[in-house]
């Protein structure tokens, strides 16, 4: 549990709806939901959600803070916007799902093994090193995400594609040593640090 999380619990006590309204992107719309369920019925991944969108909205109102924020559900959203198009009250459901996932992540409550969350973190860690995505490292990290033997199996399976990419010049093996980056890496990192500070100040302002 992060300190921000503790502070938020302290601040909002038993009003999770208000907490979502204040802190989650487009969260103020949650109260507009009339529980028709057209979002859940329209979602192409709906059957895979533990809690479909309209249920998440009801859980928010019912103060089920832990269950909502640690849920894998909103991480399933693929931004197809079907729900948003059909919502009779024009709730920006897609944005709220991303907002909830983002908020849960910031509080350290997001499910760490959820594939979307896991890969997003991997992508970010890869990107911030040099300011450019190192595709070779990212690809390998993805193969080995679920353990060493899985990784070897996956690598063998993908070998012909890798070879093809290598011979056509679409993959540079030397990237493994560090790879290319932005010109001003020092400035890039300073910029990220500044952004983090601004974000922390913004969140702090709410606490």
């Amino acid at each position, binding site marked *: 549990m992060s300190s921000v999380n503790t502070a938020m619990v302290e601040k909002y006590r038993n009003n999770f709806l208000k907490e979502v309204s204040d802190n989650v992107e487009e969260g103020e719309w949650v109260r507009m939901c009339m529980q*028709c*369920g057209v979002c859940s*019925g329209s979602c192409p991944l709906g059957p895979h959600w533990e809690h479909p969108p309209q249920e998440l909205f009801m859980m928010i109102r019912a103060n089920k803070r832990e269950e909502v924020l640690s849920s894998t559900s909103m991480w399933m959203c693929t931004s197809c916007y079907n729900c948003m198009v059909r919502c009779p009250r024009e709730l920006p459901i897609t944005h709220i799902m991303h907002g909830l996932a983002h908020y849960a992540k910031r509080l350290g409550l997001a499910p760490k093994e959820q594939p979307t969350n896991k890969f997003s973190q991997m992508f970010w860690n890869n990107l911030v090193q040099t300011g450019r995505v190192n595709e070779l490292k990212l690809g390998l990290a993805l193969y080995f995400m679920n353990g060493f033997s899985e990784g070897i199996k996956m690598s063998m399976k993908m070998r012909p594609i890798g070879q093809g990419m290598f011979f056509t010049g679409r993959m540079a093996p030397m990237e493994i040593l560090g790879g290319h980056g932005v010109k001003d890496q020092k400035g890039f990192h300073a910029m990220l640090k500044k952004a983090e500070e601004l974000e922390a100040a913004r969140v702090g302002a709410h606490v």
Partner: protein
Amino acid sequence: MTEVVATNQTIVVVGGGISGMTAALEAAECGKQVILIEKNPSLGGRVSQLYKYFPKLCFPTCGLEINLRRIKANPNISLLTLAEVTAVSGQAGDYSLTVKIAPRYINSNCTACGACADAVESTFPNEFNYNLNQRKGAYLPFNMAYPQRFVIDPRMIGTADADKAKAACKFEAIDLDMQPEELKLKAGAIIWATGWQPYDANKIQPYGYDRFANVITSVELERMMDPQGPTGGKLVRPSDGKEAKDIAFIQCAGSRDRNYLKHCSRICCMASLKQSTYPREKFGAEGKSTIYYIDIRAIDRFEDFYQKVQADTTVNFIKSKVASITLDKATQNPILNGNDLEKSGTGKDMRYSNAHDLVVLAVGMQPSVDFKAMNLGLSVNDEGFIELDPANGGQFAAGCASDALDVNRAVQNATASALRAIQVINQVANAEG
């Protein structure tokens, strides 16, 4: 030429449906002079197109007949059919109206014998049956039409069929040279009883009304149940004429939805509860209904009716706004997709894909006239209904011109509007001494 006497002590009622007839009668039976203007060839409006009323499940023909008899018996009412108001000017106690009258091509000699209809061959979509079947070019709009007089479709004028109709008439009732007329009327007060129209179901893209034959609207189901209707009272599917024993009703089809109509149309829940008795009426225990709803709004005393339907084992309720309809091509069954919100478990357990024989969209109500565009100086709300506002002067809304209402409430509302109009006329009469 149409002759009508109108003074600034006349009440003009626009619309000859249940609200307009009620308002006209209430005012006329209080001794006021009333001109009743109807756009269609007959009085009756949407009520005449219903099979049954809720909650008593009686037939509207009965109430309609009582009203028609009262109108026939009342010398204070002048009726103009095929007439439309095109402009209004003036203020309370002193209005001038322009009324366009379309030619009927049949005069008052008509005995409704039907010889003209037998003589002609050309047919046109039958608007009384929501275009579900065809009618002749010379026709009586429906059996109870008032005035009980045939009409010749203007699209038939100039064809050989029109001459055939004229030749067939033994009473010299057909006048093919009849011309449109324009009347100027005076009025002290105007009652807008222009009613409603079903929301255009083609606009609800995920439900495929435009693509699937077996997706129909609630108003069309009413016509299908009528023994005089397009299927002769048989409850069958449009695609193959198979008996529709398993019917799904989709509530809020176009209502309570910012993509379509913002307002709750209020009648559709009760209409679907009523219609859920139809499969049972036709097929006994084999007739099944499933109502997909957000919440059932059986307002005040209708709760009893709701409970009665709930107790019926042939009726199933699923709390869910249906997300989309797809088609099973082999059987032509529409398949309803969505999430059942009362199922517990994860998303997988809630998901349904239910096939039904026929799907009925409980379409919403919207005003049939665009009052804003007519620029009548009326206070019109976002939904297009006329608001009760002193600034409206001597103009009042009756029935569904004022809000989405069921028949009972429309009639109450029409009576209220007649009282308001009478007050205006009384003020004019007092001032003139």
